């Protein structure tokens, strides 16, 4: 398997472990919808959280979270909205980013960016 996919899978596992530790109740991973895929879906603080996982090695150009651009965000919103409809969830939900960086020493570091659509959604 190509190395970056390897990294991806390992990152997702790490993210699930860390998020659970942080109090997220993971409900599912790799949920496939017609228009896209949701990496992790969890429940935290009374809302459903769609977590997009990004991994990267330190030394690469962009920080992992910066690789989620406007079109990707729009896709996540559409996919997430479709998911909520499909499970019949009418309550609040949000999108977080879990950014995993592999240090030179090989040790991974996880950073969570909460609620990335604040201020971006037009009322």
């Amino acid at each position, binding site marked *: 398997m190509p190395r970056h996919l390897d990294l991806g899978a390992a990152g997702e596992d790490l993210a699930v472990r860390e998020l659970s530790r942080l109090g997220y109740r993971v409900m599912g991973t790799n949920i496939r919808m017609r228009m896209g895929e949701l990496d992790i879906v969890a429940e935290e603080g009374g809302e459903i959280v769609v977590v997009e996982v990004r991994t990267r090695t330190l030394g690469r150009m962009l920080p992992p979270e910066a690789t989620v651009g406007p079109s990707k965000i729009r896709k996540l919103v559409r996919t997430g909205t479709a998911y909520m409809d499909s499970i019949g969830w009418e309550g609040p*939900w949000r999108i977080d980013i879990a950014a995993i960086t592999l240090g030179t020493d090989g040790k991974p570091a996880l950073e969570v960016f909460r609620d990335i659509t604040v201020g971006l959604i037009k009322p």
Partner: protein
Amino acid sequence: MNAVLGVTLQGIQALRVEVEVEITGGLFVISVVGLPDASVREARERVRAALRSLGISVKGRVAVNLAPADSPKEGALLDLPIAVGIAHSMGEIHVTRPSLFMGELALDGRVRRVRGAVPAAILARDMGLPLFVPAGNAREVSLVKGIEAYKVEHIRGLFEHLRGSAMLQAIEPSEESVEYPEPDPDLSDIKGQAAAKRALEIAAAGHHNVLLTGSPGSGKTLLARSLKDILPPLSDDEMMEVLMVRSTVGLSLDSSRRRPFRAIHHTASTISVCGGGTNLRPGEISLAHRGVLFLDEFTEFRRDLLESLRQPLEDGCISVSRASGSVTYPARVLLVAACNPCQCGYLGDPVEPCRCSPSAVDRYRRKMSGPILDRVDLYVTVPRLTPEELVQAEGQEGEGSPEVLKRVIRARERQWERWGPLGFQCNAELPEKALKKQVGINAEGRRFLKEMAGRVRLSGRGISRVMKVARTIADLAGDVDISTVHLAEALAFREGGDLPWNR
């Protein structure tokens, strides 16, 4: 009616704003209907941050509706009611009684002072609702009687109060209005100038507008400022009007009953004087409402600025408009204008020679006329005292302001008695018709006035002015009829009666 209410200002009046909040699922977004977009962006941040400081995390789609939607509103005042509305909708707190909230939120949850607290208090009084205001506005609210009001330092305190776990401090009505503050300056601080002081006494008694003519250094500004302390103290209603204007502008309050004194420089912009600008704020003339408006160097004022003063001097109020609407502010003032006798300032001075050419003197003289000076009843000249005269005037300070004020008040009372039934408050307000019929001039006086008017070629307007001023002089003396004694003194203040170039 909704329980959560905020206020918005229209002129010096507060209007109620109903805050409705609906929270549904979906990605987090706060939308506010009824505020301009720029204000919404800022309000959102403040409200969310303030609620977060209490550990309240706002989630989901929040729709805030401010009714009525189409009237212009200012964002900052509405921070607090919006936060309360959202928290109420989330079930974090319960607002059981309809209440008025006003205040700006800091990101850490503190509640900041805003303008317009007094109009809001009056609205609360009229609606019979409790009012929650920032602690920084407590003092001005305490001057409004008959309301239930609380001061809020931090949003936490407010929520605890609403939950019933801790009470906010109520705002007690304050009795601190000082009826007779220390005069500044006192008439006895001014050396000599007996004629000008007498003129000011007459002006105060009858609410007559004044023109002071004198060379630089003659003391016109000091004399103008002394007028506010010989005017009768503000009545309760007048005090409320003054408070409302000051509160609308966001100025600190003077709790005394001293009349306002505002001096405007001739370079001032029309907006700063008359009001207007982005938020349609009141101008200097409204800040001088029920007090004295001083126009120094009157001849240097731009014509458009003077023109815009005409309506308020006539009506006692001023309309300020923009595309978004118009607002009327109170502007009932006593006008004091001051100018030099000529361009260089020293025409007729005992020591300094006048450097003006004869045509410059004529030109300057022509500036001393117009729609504003038409409303002046007293034309007073103020000599510039030589050093010898100043020394002579030592120890002859004359009466202090309190003594003069007593006479002024009595004279005013006589005017209220006489003109009250007709709907006027003072001699200066009297229109021509009422003047001719009711003023009470005896036969000898009538003859005297006729003769004098002919001698000095008084216009019809000039005659009316002399009669009004004579009526005030008679009131100061406690005389019922106007006789030659009063008319003669009034003549000394007639227009053009004292200028050397009138020869």
